């Protein structure tokens, strides 16, 4: 099979899955089978692209030319492939998990749920393989619209209010800033194609470039840089599988992926270093990391704490991109993967706790470790992955980020990074600790016979938790791609 066909498959399969799920409608088994099989095929198609991309083969597709020079076109390149690999792998796992969760929780409108899930993955593939900013923007907006009904899935007033914030911030920033930045790029550079080393002619003034960079960083609201992060905690009203795949992997990673790609292939590292705004945005990212960590410390709701932790960790990736050193970019790209595995495990665990023990607050978790040892064990491992210590893969990304910061000689940032690592220990580790070692006199509360969540969910948790550990041993799968991409 030609590699171009594979790329077409990677883009088309989730759309087929969307149609298939709608067709299966209320036939539950068929619907879930369609989801799982297409997820499997997608991973197969994307992973077959791995070797050719490493060899530097040019794989591209063009769908339509909207205007001269502006087309809907796709190209498989290392960074995008990395994102697509992570998303398609975790789609399988999440589908597995969602089957257990949705059945166990008896949710309504499951067809809509699985169908929109597939549509979201389709837009993620579009974003990952976009050849130019125009294509990327189109799929970026589709992703927002496709995930909105998932956020408001519960249909309650609270869900609707959350969904409104979600839509308003994501659409507002993308139309108000991102689209403007794209138009500016087109006018200055005459092209929107991602090009290694940047697209701007060397005589472009630093003031204009600064303005564009600011517009990009704020315009990509999905990267959740403060003060445009409010949508992410608001989106936590969604069912847990949605929070897990979309708000730990697909949507937020689409955001930071765009930032990475814009820094690397629209500005180019050399240009980026020379722009005055870069330094300011670096500090903004650092502030975002610290503030979000502090807010996370004060959250008692488990999902809210995880959400603020995500805001903070996304700051790391943006910071890595803005450092404009190869180690920084590598660290940022790696953290996309590491954080994805860690955070999805954490959300899976939060969902398992909700389904099995009906608990949402951290203060209620005392002693739960005895009833759900596997879940809480996985939670512990994943927390280590987010913090960035062995035996988990998070070690690598944090290491490269630190290296990048030192390389860029941003000593203040080095201190800030250390500080926020300590903070992440403080907001994550107490959760499993409380579960395993309840405070004196506190007995396990709630239903007497709390047991682990249904087996499909447990299987999903096991896969991602083991993934966290394996990534420590085999980081080369990722780092080789990044090396080719840089």
């Amino acid at each position, binding site marked *: 099979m030609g590699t171009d066909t594979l790329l077409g498959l990677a883009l088309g399969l989730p759309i087929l899955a969307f149609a298939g799920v709608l067709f299966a409608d209320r036939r539950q088994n068929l619907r879930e089978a369609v989801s799982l099989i297409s997820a499997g095929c997608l991973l197969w198609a994307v992973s077959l692209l791995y070797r050719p991309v490493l060899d530097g083969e040019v794989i591209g597709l063009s769908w339509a030319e909207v*205007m001269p020079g502006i087309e809907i076109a796709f190209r498989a390149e290392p960074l995008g492939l990395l994102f697509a690999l992570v998303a398609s792998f975790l789609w399988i796992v999440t589908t597995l998990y969602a089957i257990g969760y949705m059945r166990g929780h008896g949710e309504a409108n499951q067809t809509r749920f699985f169908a929109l899930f597939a549509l979201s993955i389709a837009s993620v593939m579009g974003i990952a393989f976009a050849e130019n900013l125009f294509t990327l923007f*189109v799929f970026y907006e589709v992703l927002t619209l496709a995930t909105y009904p998932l956020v408001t899935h519960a249909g309650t007033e609270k869900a609707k209010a959350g969904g409104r914030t979600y839509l308003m911030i994501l659409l507002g920033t993308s*139309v108000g800033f991102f689209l403007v930045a794209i138009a500016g790029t087109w006018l200055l550079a005459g092209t929107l194609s991602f090009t290694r080393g940047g697209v701007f002619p060397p005589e472009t003034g630093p003031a204009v470039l600064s303005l564009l960079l600011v517009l990009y960083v704020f315009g990509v609201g999905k990267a959740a840089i403060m003060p445009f992060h409010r949508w992410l905690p608001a989106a936590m009203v969604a069912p847990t599988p949605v929070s897990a795949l979309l708000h730990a992997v697909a949507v937020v990673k689409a955001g930071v992926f765009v930032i990475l790609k814009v820094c690397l292939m629209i500005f180019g590292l050399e240009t980026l270093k020379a722009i005055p705004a870069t330094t300011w945005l670096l500090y903004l990212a650092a502030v975002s990391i610290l503030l979000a960590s502090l807010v996370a410390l004060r959250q008692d709701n488990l999902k809210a704490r995880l959400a603020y932790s995500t805001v903070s960790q996304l700051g790391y990736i943006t910071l890595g991109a803005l450092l404009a050193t190869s180690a920084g970019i590598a660290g940022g790209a790696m953290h996309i993967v590491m954080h994805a595995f860690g955070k999805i495990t954490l959300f899976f665990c939060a969902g398992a706790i909700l389904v099995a023990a009906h608990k949402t607050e951290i203060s209620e978790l005392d002693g739960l470790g005895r009833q759900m040892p596997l879940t809480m064990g996985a939670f512990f491992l994943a927390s280590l992955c987010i913090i960035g210590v062995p035996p988990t893969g998070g070690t690598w990304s944090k290491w490269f980020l630190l290296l990048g910061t030192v390389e860029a000689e941003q000593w203040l940032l080095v201190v800030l990074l250390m500080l926020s690592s300590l903070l992440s220990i403080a907001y994550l580790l107490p959760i499993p600790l409380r579960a395993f070692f309840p405070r004196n006199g506190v007995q396990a509360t709630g239903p007497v016979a709390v047991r682990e969540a249904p087996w499909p969910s447990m299987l999903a948790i096991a896969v991602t938790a083991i993934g966290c550990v394996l990534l420590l041993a085999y980081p080369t799968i990722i780092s080789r791609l990044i090396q080719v991409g840089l």
Partner: protein
Amino acid sequence: MLTHLPILQVILPLVAAPSCLFLQKSRLSWAFTLLVSLAAFVVSALLLQQVMSEGSIRYSLGGWDAPWGIEYRIDVLNAWVLFIVTGVSTAVIAAARASVESELGASRQTIFYTLYLLCFSGLLGIVATGDVFNVFVFLEISSLSTYALIAMGRDRRALWSAFQYLVLGTIGATFILIGIGFLYMMTGTLNMLDLAERLPAVESSTAVLAAFAFILVGICLKLALFPLHLWLPNAYSSAPSIVTAFLAATATKVALYLLVRFTVTVFGIDFSLSALPLQSLFILLGLAGVFVGSAVAIYQSNIKRMFAYSSVAQIGYMIVGIGISTVAGLQATLLHLFNHALMKAALFLALAGLVLRAGGCALEDFRGLGRRMPWTMGAIAVAGASLVGMPLTAGFISKWHLIAAAIDSGFWILALLIVAGSLLSAVYVWRLIDAAYLQGPDKSLPEQGRNEAPLGILIPTWGLVLANLYFGVETSLPVTVTQAASAYLLGGAP
């Protein structure tokens, strides 16, 4: 037959109008009007195709050659505008039956369709003719019938709006007539091409300058260029819904065509730009229109009125394009003329459906509309996105061309202001989306079930919506035609 297409375009609806009076049955007169409109659309499509392949067509009425007889002259520009007007009219009339029936009652429908056909033929006449006095005649035909159509609106405010428009419209038409009189006095001809040839010899005279000023102001009144737009919001919001959809998508477009025709063809672009500081005047007034129109639109609670102010803003964009006065700028104007007709017709038709079902179109009526009328609201959402200029919709294409044209001529700030104007339109469109999908139904009202507009309205509306999407991706038809038209007008190529 094919050689007579130019006159067929105008005479068909003109003859149809009185014939319609004899059809007493209201449904019959609707079907008749639709048929005539469709035929006119086919004629205009043939004309466009002929002009694109063989160049301009000259047609002498009754075999009397110009300058004795009246000459119809179809080039790429009028063929394009004729195509837009007839196309929109067909879609609007296809949707008209249910809405007209409920808003006008049984007795006045035949009169309505007669007036509509008169207005339609007037607009087509203005565009097709190559004779300036003929322009005035058709302008009066279309204007008088428009006043009557607006006055047919449901509440008594319609009478006042129609009267207001009548006063201002008559002033505009009179100005145009005075200007034409001056031109005739100076050159002894009424034929546009002859005028263009003879004017340079006398262009330094005050009479020509006065003629230019009178005609310019007269057209700008009909065009509703800021600050001469005061009649438009009242007229649009109190006219019957179908009339609003038709006028918003065609009448201002025809006035815009006249502006281009007079400034570029008759007076010549060099004279127009040097006689008055037209470039900065158009850019400034256009921008003022964009900002004032959009800002006022944000605060409207009547949605028909809101989109009327939005029309003032969109006209501003087109005027800016003329103000840039390069081939690219004029092309952007002509593109937006087409795209704006598509989106506004879709929006006002959807509103017609809403008025039919909900009895009004205040912002309150939009609460929970996403559930009650999903197709109607879907149409409003997509056409609204096109109005804002989201990628993959037609609105994006014309805004993009306009910005590119501004940058090409070095107007950086103008480009930024155009973008800022789009953001304002995003605000007022967002209010509808927010109310329809996100706020949920009004708790104080009794629960309402699904109550979708009739298929008769939905199908033409969605036809227009799909056209908005189609021309947002596959742009070769409008782009080649407008490119040819603006190059022809400014470059003097055949």
